[in-house]
């Protein structure tokens, strides 16, 4: 299953690209309209890019009346990314989106690096949203969380149906001549190939910590990258930065992924999910007890994939 990362594709301006995905994830919607951050908003780095868009969006009301009906016309499974600045804001948005049959899932953006965060914990926000909607809830977490596995367990206990890993991580780029920050807000979110090892670690750790399905994203630019995230424990893949340089990436990566699976004698994508954990356990003699237990539990799960 291949999705886009939230904020990395506009299905209304590029419907032909959205149609190549298994589901479309909207740009994050906040209760009130947001113009976004001042330019400059993007900068390339040596192995990635920075963005400082700042959740530019038309606000929930216009999203419901103007954007959602047009997205529904695309007849694609639709995930709506929900943002806010308090648990109450998230919950009110989830309530307003509840019961819309055109929406397959809600992804709670709990990790935008370019705006102020809500004061509540991720689990508190998930619990408030869980009480407001019966639509499947995915919690999108930051790789900069100090105890990511603990946070994954906490959002699972709070009622999340899945987690999305990872959002961008803060970075800075300086102009080569003036040494001034390239972005208008100086610091932005780092994405692209530089994020891939970070995403792999996050998915790997959370796959051991929870039984929730994981949407893996971060630096996927080819089928091999996608396979690695699946091996680390993701059961779906989202594409972000690669869509900017290659609008044909979903189809290309799907083909490459099939080839990568075939090379390894795997007939079904599901057979690849979590196999890095088996490799880790088989290949090392000195794993500590907790890893061994978690790995065994995970392997039991991996034999019966959920997605």
């Amino acid at each position, binding site marked *: 299953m291949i999705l886009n990362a939230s*904020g*990395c*594709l*506009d299905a209304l*301006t*590029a419907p*032909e*690209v959205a149609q190549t995905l298994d589901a479309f994830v909207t*740009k994050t919607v906040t209760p009130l309209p947001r*113009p*976004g951050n001042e*330019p*400059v*908003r*993007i*900068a*390339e*780095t040596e*192995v*990635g*890019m920075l*963005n400082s*868009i700042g959740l*530019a969006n038309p606000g929930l009301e216009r999203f419901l009346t103007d954007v959602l009906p047009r997205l529904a016309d695309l007849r694609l499974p639709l995930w709506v990314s929900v943002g806010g600045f308090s648990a109450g804001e998230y919950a009110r948005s989830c309530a307003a989106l509840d019961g819309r049959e055109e929406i397959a899932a809600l992804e709670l953006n709990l990790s935008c690096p370019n705006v102020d965060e809500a004061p509540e914990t991720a689990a508190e926000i998930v619990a408030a949203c869980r009480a407001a909607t019966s639509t499947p809830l995915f919690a999108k977490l930051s790789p900069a969380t100090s105890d990511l596995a603990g946070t994954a367990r906490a959002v699972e206990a709070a009622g999340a149906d899945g987690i999305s890993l990872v959002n961008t991580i803060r970075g800075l780029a300086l102009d*080569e001549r003036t040494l001034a920050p390239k972005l208008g807000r100086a610091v932005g979110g780092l994405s*692209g*190939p530089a994020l891939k090892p970070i995403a792999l670690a996050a998915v790997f750790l959370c796959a051991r910590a929870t039984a929730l399905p994981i949407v893996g994203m971060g630096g996927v630019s080819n089928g091999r990258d996608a396979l690695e995230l699946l091996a680390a424990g993701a059961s779906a893949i989202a594409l972000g*930065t690669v*869509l*900017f*340089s*290659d*609008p*044909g990436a979903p189809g290309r990566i799907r083909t490459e992924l099939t080839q990568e699976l075939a090379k390894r004698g795997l007939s079904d994508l599901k057979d690849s999910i979590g196999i890095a954990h088996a490799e880790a356990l088989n290949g090392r003699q000195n794993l500590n007890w907790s890893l061994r237990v978690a790995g065994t539990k995970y392997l039991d799960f991996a034999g019966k994939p959920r997605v």
Partner: protein
Amino acid sequence: MLRRERLRVAGSEQVGPYTLLRVERGGLEPGVPGQFFMLGAPGRLLPRPMSLCFAPRHELSFLIDPIGPGTRALCALERGDQLTVLGPLGNGFRLDVLRPVLVGGSIGIAPLPYLSEMLGHPRALLGFRSSWYAEAAALVPNADVVLDPVYVTELLPDDDSAVLACGPEQMLEAVRRIVPAAQLAWEAPMACGYGACYGCAVEIGGTWKRLCVEGPVLFGHGWGQTPAMAAPAMAAMDGRR
């Protein structure tokens, strides 16, 4: 419909400090003058937006100023090298104008040779920072050239000519003050060129818009260009090609 192809470099020429990169056209359309293409810069993560400079038969040519790692990589391409090209993108100039005058500054002259050809080589007013940069003026027929510290706006005719301009932001702002109805081709850093990244947002008239899908050519007095307007212009151009 987005079209992206891997194309071969047909040649590369120095024009003052700039490089004229000639690429085999493949199956891509040249589009309307002022539209742009995303050129995949070798070794770089993100492509770079470039407006079309010339559209000779079977080729697309781009005038590039090597100001950073991406543009330097593009300028280093040699005949036979390959690169990915996505386009044409955005909204170009409206060509149904009377008494056109082209105005360009520095690398902003890039779309003017193609525009000049489509409009029958009207008068052009070009400004450069030095005579070395001004070597690029040879690409635009019927051009009057000024060098820094003279501003190109000092040459603007005081009549009802239709002004079509591309250049630095300060130049476009100055043109807009003098000729509110001018068509202005803006630029902004962008990662995708097709509305996905929201990186190229610009504030005009109190609202933020993505330059890649709303522009890059806009009327000076506000937002008036719509994608539908590119269609008759495209038809007119096809008839002249």
